[in-house]
């Protein structure tokens, strides 16, 4: 067990809080019709993004999925530019070209999210290959869902990451469903982390609602990666608090299961832990929430007052 510095713990907590408030706000704005397109929200999985990214430097690089807001916030994409992207404005982190499913910012180490399930896994592996070539200590992290573990890209990538000992960490957020499909009908095994053995790399299962567990596992994986010992597959068992996208009522989920998981709120779990350990007071938390709300208000203001992209901008930035 690594001892986690206090400021890291606070950072994780604040990041999770930020994600939670951000997503709750987005959900409301979306339902009110302020945002075009579709969204996939991250509430319930905050401990994964925060616990993983707390181990990363700005120069480390992540790939993400159709459910990327949490990863973006945890990796340091500016909240204003994230918000503006969801509002489809030219000040968005992708200039309005990407939208919710493609947010990212290479300047802080996040490739625009790849919304093809499994599509980011080879890309992260290639990023890690570049790092190895460049003899740098940077690592790549690929976030993906349980559903992605059944894509060919998962298989091919983990194998190559393994044989070349690449500095890449494969983070599977097993929220038990791929859209409406339970992982129990999609695979016949208990833990997706078991699949690591097919590639000869370590596979670990952690409680994805416990930021500290996620942190610990990632810390070890990052150390391995930076040390040239190759990839790790980390399976974080977690749960979406809401629907798969937009207004999904999750009627395909077992109500008992839902109840059980919803009581295990990762934000609350970390708050209680930090409070118990005397690292955080209820006042600190309140203060944080206040700051976050203010930041969000500003970000929304920024986004709403940002210009729309000009139609013809559609033709730009195809070619380098």
């Amino acid at each position: 067990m690594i001892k986690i510095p206090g400021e890291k713990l606070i950072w994780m907590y604040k990041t999770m809080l930020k994600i939670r408030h951000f997503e709750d706000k987005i959900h409301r704005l979306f339902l009110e019709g302020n945002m075009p397109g579709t969204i996939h929200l991250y509430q319930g999985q905050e401990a994964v993004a925060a616990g993983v990214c707390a181990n990363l430097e700005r120069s480390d690089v992540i790939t993400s999925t159709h459910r990327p807001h949490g990863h973006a916030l945890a990796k340091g994409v500016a909240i204003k530019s994230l918000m503006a992207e969801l509002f489809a404005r030219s000040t968005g982190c992708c200039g309005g070209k990407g939208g919710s499913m493609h947010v990212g910012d290479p300047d802080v180490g996040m490739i625009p999210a790849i919304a093809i399930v499994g599509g980011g896994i080879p890309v992260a592996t290639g990023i890690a290959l570049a790092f190895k070539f460049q003899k740098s200590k940077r690592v790549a992290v690929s976030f993906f869902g349980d559903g992605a573990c059944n894509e060919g890209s998962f298989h091919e990538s983990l194998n190559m990451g393994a044989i070349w000992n690449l500095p890449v960490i494969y983070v599977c957020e097993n929220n038990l469903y791929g859209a409406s499909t339970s992982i129990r009908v999609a695979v016949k095994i208990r833990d997706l982390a078991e699949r690591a053995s097919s590639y000869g790399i370590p596979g670990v299962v952690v409680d994805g609602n416990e930021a500290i567990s996620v942190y610990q596992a990632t810390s070890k994986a990052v150390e391995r990666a930076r040390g040239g010992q190759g990839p790790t597959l980390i399976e974080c068992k977690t749960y979406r608090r809401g629907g798969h996208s937009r207004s999904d009522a999750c009627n395909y989920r077992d109500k008992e299961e839902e109840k059980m998981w919803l009581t295990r709120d990762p934000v609350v779990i970390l708050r209680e832990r930090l409070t118990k350990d005397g690292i955080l007071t209820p006042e600190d938390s309140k203060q944080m929430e206040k700051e976050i709300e203010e930041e969000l208000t500003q970000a929304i203001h920024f986004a709403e007052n940002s210009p729309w992209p000009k139609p013809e901008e559609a033709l730009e930035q195809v070619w380098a």
Partner: protein
Amino acid sequence: MRKLTIAEALREAIAEEMRRDEKVFCIGEDIGIEGGFGGAFTVTLGLSDEFGHERILDTPISELGTTGIAVGAALMGMRPIADLQYGDFIFLAMDQLINNATKLRYMSGGKLKVPMVMRIPVGASLRGAQHAQSVESYLVHAAGLKVVCPSTAYDAKGLLKTAVRDDNPVMVFEHKLLYGAKGRKEGMDARGEVPPEEYLIPFGVAKVVREGGDVTIVATLRMVYEAILAAEELKRASISVEIIDPRTLVPFDWETLFNSLKKTGRLVIVHEDNLTGGWGAEVAARVADEAIDLLDAPIKRVCSYDTPVPFSPPMENFWVPGRERIVKTVKELFSS
């Protein structure tokens, strides 16, 4: 007569064919889960109640594998209807379609056949670059696939039923903005009359959506509606537009097109798939070969631009070919 949305019409077609022939089954992601969505666009909603989960078969997220499984099942006499959720995912499945589905019959010296259907939602609908592409043209080029593009509920039902009974692999493209009731976009009420009696629509028979004498517009899917809007506007400028919806791109009804050109002498092709190498190029090339004498003007194409699909509405609107670009293009044909 009763009106159905395209989603409803497709659902009815599937149900009828499944009742008629127990070899027909559906396979895809999230198509039959209890409490789920009935596929990304509700087409299979409720079907597992009648047909059970074996025949409305939910899969893991494994497009290459499921496509190959559909091929294999078809080889053994089953008639799979595979649901691809979004056309953008076709690039994961192409090996099985192009290297196996189109070739196994040929390689077997004609002994095998691959009677499978793939349903492929296409079209930009504010979902960004990877859930928006129109991918028909790739499959038009892949020799050995039939390619179907219904623009109305009536056509959707009749063509899908024909597809299920065809002994070849058939790709059915469905436009996301046309599935539902009207109102998603101006002028686009894809809800339409569908007789309760059974009917089939043969492949390779185009529909003259609107008769006119000055210019022929060929369009499919959502673009049919944009063409209609454009035609209305052009009428006010005294230009009479004939609109042809080929309904199937493979096989293509050249006769109806050439007959139209005999009247109009002018051709504009409209598709949402991007310009370069799109199926419109094939239409233009055939006309420039076999019917060039009928032309009084250059052949024009109004297509999306050769870029990824942008997310933000002003850009997406600009990117998708629409009434204005069609009107402008047609007018140019008459001003020179």
